[in-house]
Structure formats: C-alpha cells, structure tokens
C-alpha cells in the first residue's frame, strides 16, 4: 500500500496492520504529522498540532499492542474540533475571546477516546464559537475544502471535514447544533454522525445552544463512525442531558444489510430549494438501498414546515450563553457573528416558548412517522459546498437547513457521500433513525458504502 493510500486507511484495516506488526503506531503517526506539515499550510485545518503528544500516545499504543491488551482504537490517530477542552492544550473555539485558553481538564469525549488508546494529532479549526465564519483579518484563517480550495469545507466543524478529506487524520470529533457535523461531512465527502441527543456527552465542549447541541464522530466511513461511537457513548453525570439508556453494540450487526428494512423518503420540506444534481444523486442512493433489499416509500411529516423556527431556540440560547461577553467585550467577536448572536437577544419570551411548542409538535409527528418505517432518508445539504466569495458576503443569509430538523428532534442522523457535482464537489444524503437506534442508522450506512465507492474517492491533494 502506498503512503498516500495508507493515510486514507480505515480503523479496522489499521488495527489489523498494527496487531500483525506490519505497521507501528509511531511510524504511522510520524507519517501523518509529516503530511500535516506539508498539506496544512494550504488547508488550515489544524489550529494546533500536538506532535510530541502524538508520539507519546503512539508509544503508549505500541506498549499496549506488545502487551496484547490493545482495543480497536489503540494507536488510531485522532484530531479534535477546537471546541473540545483538552488538558494543557489551548482550546480556542476558533475565537479571539478564547485564543489563549488552556483548560486544566479533558472534556469527557476526549478522555474516553484517549483512554481507548487513540493518538492525539492536534486540534482542528472550528467556525468561531461553532457559529461564525472567519472573515479576512480574523485571528484564525478559515479551513479550505480539499476538493476545491476556493470553496468552504462547511462548518462549523470545518477543520474536521477538511482534515479527514485530505488524509490528515483518521478520526475526528465534531459538534452539531444545526448541522455542524453533517454539513462539513457533506461538503468534504466524508461521514459524520450526529448521535441521539443525550447519547454522547457534551461536558467540557463549548456551548452554542444547549437544547440543540450534539457531539459525535466524524470519519471517512460509517464503519469508522461506529468504532468511535462505541467508545464515546454512555452516561456522563457531568452532562445534564446525558441519557442512561444502555449502549448498544454498534459493530455486532453492522454487516447485517438492509434486506427487509423499511426506508422512508421525506418528500415535503426536504426537497425545497435542493439543486437538481443533489436530488439526482439522492435518488440514485435511495435506488441503491432498494436494490440491496430495503423497502423504500415516501412519507410525510406534516409539521416539518415549521422547522425553521428552531433558529429562535438556537439564537436565543446562544445569546443567553454569550450575553455578558457580547456586552462587555464585543470587539473580541468577529464581524457578523456578533450581530448574529445579538439577534438572539431580540426575541420575546413568548416567541422562544412558541418555538419550543412547535419543536414538540415536530418531534411527535416525526416519531409517529418512524413507527411506520425504520429510517428516514433526506438530502443533507441543498447543494455542494459554496465558494468563499459567496459566504464571505456580510449579507449572506442563513440558508434553508435540511439538517436542523434532526437537532430539533434529537434523532440520530448519519451523513454520507452520494456522488459528485459536475464541478467535482461531493454530494451527500442523511439517514435518520429512532432515538438511540444508531445501530440501525450505521448498518444502513455501512451497507450503502459496501455497495458504492464514493467514500473511496480522494481529493486532488498530494503530499
């Protein structure tokens, strides 16, 4: 396997190479660090590269492998969205406000993955406070899309999407309040799983909107997401929303296929404003699921048209979190983000309450729909990644979101690549399941990826 192919290897494959002593975690981490040094000058995916830490983690992994007590994640490189607190390593949230913050403890997710033997390569840029975009002159430059450097990689987990697509890490963590795991997954041609609300701890992860915030894995395949979710999932008393639901075995039935599974295509709301190429790729993906033995049918969720009201909740909660700093140190927020956050201070109390009532209605309607089918499928984004010149217009509005509805409902949702636009940019669909049924969502995703090779295509970057 060439060095270029090896940097795109999956967790199962790497684990096998490590256990058979055909590759060592130290050599592998060294190769990836070298690749980061070469490619990230252009991509800006990393805020901080923790080379010494990576090599120390890799040496510890080699010791564990030699002892014979290695787990599936032992020696696997990971980089964390810079929203996740890391002990002794600065955690900026992509902001000038926290540019020099060095936490004194790891957040729960980092602690769990490090305990599982993963090798920390560094911290990945996030859109400012998981919500703004880095305009020119910002403290941190924005990550660029490896498929086309003039296009955004999506956000807010922008560094995670770019680093995975360019082979600069094997795994990553993102956060998702209105699509920040799935958006970069869609725009960069990778996999991103937003688990059920409460499934993965948010303790120690900088808040955006606490009733919509989710944390979860990003990787290059559904299978790799399953490996990481296995180590991440489980109750955490430090997160008040953390669920006590038992953790499933996400790998046990991953190869189970989709024969007989009922797939619902939500036609209303999710196809409005979606570009024809994205729709065509989606239809081919759904056709593939049908050929694999799933029963596909259209379904409706009557209240879904009220989904944009989730922005009332997001903006109001984000303002509540940032209010003191916004009033006392507004100059430390980037342009436009400041006004976006201030917009959240303009809602009335009754409007926030009505948005929560609509949310309950959407949740109930979606739950009812999921009694008749096992999973829902929808296009992830409206089209491929837009260019920087479009999104850096200060008047660029919030686009209609196909991802927000699954933050509103809290349902597990996996974004996977479905093909490419004529301009060579990735397209994506999302698979959503019942609460805590990540196992089925991942199984559908894995079956689709065994039958297709979109996730094996590589962007035009060479070390």
């Amino acid at each position, binding site marked *: 396997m060439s060095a270029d192919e090896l940097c795109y290897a999956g967790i199962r494959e790497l684990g096998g190479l490590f256990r058979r002593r055909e590759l060592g975690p130290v050599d592998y981490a060294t190769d990836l660090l070298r690749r980061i040094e070469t490619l990230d000058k252009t991509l800006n995916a990393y805020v901080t590269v923790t080379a010494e830490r990576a090599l120390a983690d890799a040496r510890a992994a080699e010791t564990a492998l030699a002892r014979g007590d290695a787990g599936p994640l032992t020696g696997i490189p990971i980089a964390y969205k810079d929203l996740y607190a890391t002990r002794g390593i600065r955690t900026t949230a992509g902001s000038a406000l926290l540019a020099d913050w060095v936490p004194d403890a790891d957040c729960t997710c980092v602690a769990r993955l490090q305990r599982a033997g993963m090798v920390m390569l560094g911290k990945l840029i996030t859109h400012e406070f998981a919500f703004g975009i880095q305009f020119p002159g910002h403290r941190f430059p924005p990550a660029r899309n490896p498929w086309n450097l003039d296009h955004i990689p999506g956000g807010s987990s922008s560094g995670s999407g770019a680093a995975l697509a360019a082979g600069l890490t094997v795994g990553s963590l993102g956060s998702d309040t209105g699509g920040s795991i799935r958006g970069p997954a869609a725009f960069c041609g990778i996999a991103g799983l937003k688990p*059920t609300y409460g499934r993965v701890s948010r303790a120690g992860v900088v808040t955006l909107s606490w009733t919509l915030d989710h944390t979860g894995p990003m990787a290059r395949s559904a299978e790799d997401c399953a490996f990481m979710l296995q180590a991440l999932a489980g109750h955490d008393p430090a997160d*008040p*929303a953390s669920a006590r*639901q038992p953790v499933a075995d996400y790998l046990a039935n991953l190869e189970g296929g989709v024969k007989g599974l009922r797939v619902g295509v939500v036609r209303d709301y999710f196809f409005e404003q979606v570009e024809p190429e994205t729709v065509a790729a989606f239809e081919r993906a759904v056709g593939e699921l049908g050929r694999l033995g799933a029963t596909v049918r259209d379904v409706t969720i009557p209240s879904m048209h009220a989904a944009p009201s989730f922005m009332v909740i997001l*903006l109001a909660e984000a303002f509540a979190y940032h209010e003191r700093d916004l009033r006392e140190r507004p100059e430390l927020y980037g342009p436009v983000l400041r006004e976006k956050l201030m917009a959240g201070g303009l809602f009335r109390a009754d409007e926030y309450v009505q948005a929560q009532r609509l949310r309950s209605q959407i949740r109930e309607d979606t739950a009812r729909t999921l009694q008749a089918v096992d999973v829902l499928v929808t296009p992830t984004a409206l089209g491929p990644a837009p260019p920087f010149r479009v999104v850096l217009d200060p008047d660029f509005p919030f686009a209609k979101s196909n991802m927000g509805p699954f933050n509103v409902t809290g349902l597990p949702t996996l974004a996977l690549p479905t093909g490419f636009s004529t301009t060579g940019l990735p397209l994506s669909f999302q698979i959503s399941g019942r609460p805590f049924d990540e196992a089925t969502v991942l199984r559908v995703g894995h079956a689709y990826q065994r039958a297709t090779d979109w996730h094996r295509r590589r962007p035009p970057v060479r070390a």
Partner: protein
Amino acid sequence: MPELPPDVTLDEVKERARLAGLPIPLERLSLVRGFLSNALKPIRALDSRAVRTVEPAVIFHAEVDAKGGAESGS
C-alpha cells in the same frame, strides 16, 4: 390586539434592539431582520391555541431521584 405581519420590518428590528439595549450597527440591520423574519415566520403563522403546551420542565425518575441523582428526559 392587531395581528402581526408575517415579516419583521426594519423599524421593528430597531425597536427590539433599543429595548434590549443592543447596539446593532445600521449596516447590519437588514441582515438581522433576515434572521428574525425566517425564524419567526412559522411562529407568526401559528395558531397558538391549536398547539399543545410544552412538555413538563421537570421529569422525576423514581429510581434515580431516590438516590439523589438527577436525570433529564432525552
């Protein structure tokens, strides 16, 4: 009480900002108006009498609470 128009106007944004004590620059007002309009459209279209109230804010779980722990619904 008169019905609200479906869209938020610039004057309404200015008035809300004044009441909240938030200094939103003039050149960003139309951007903020866009955020508010999109988010509030479904709410302004809502007949508030036809929607159920939000679920209880506090949910007790006998087993957990008896041990002094807290758990919120998921």
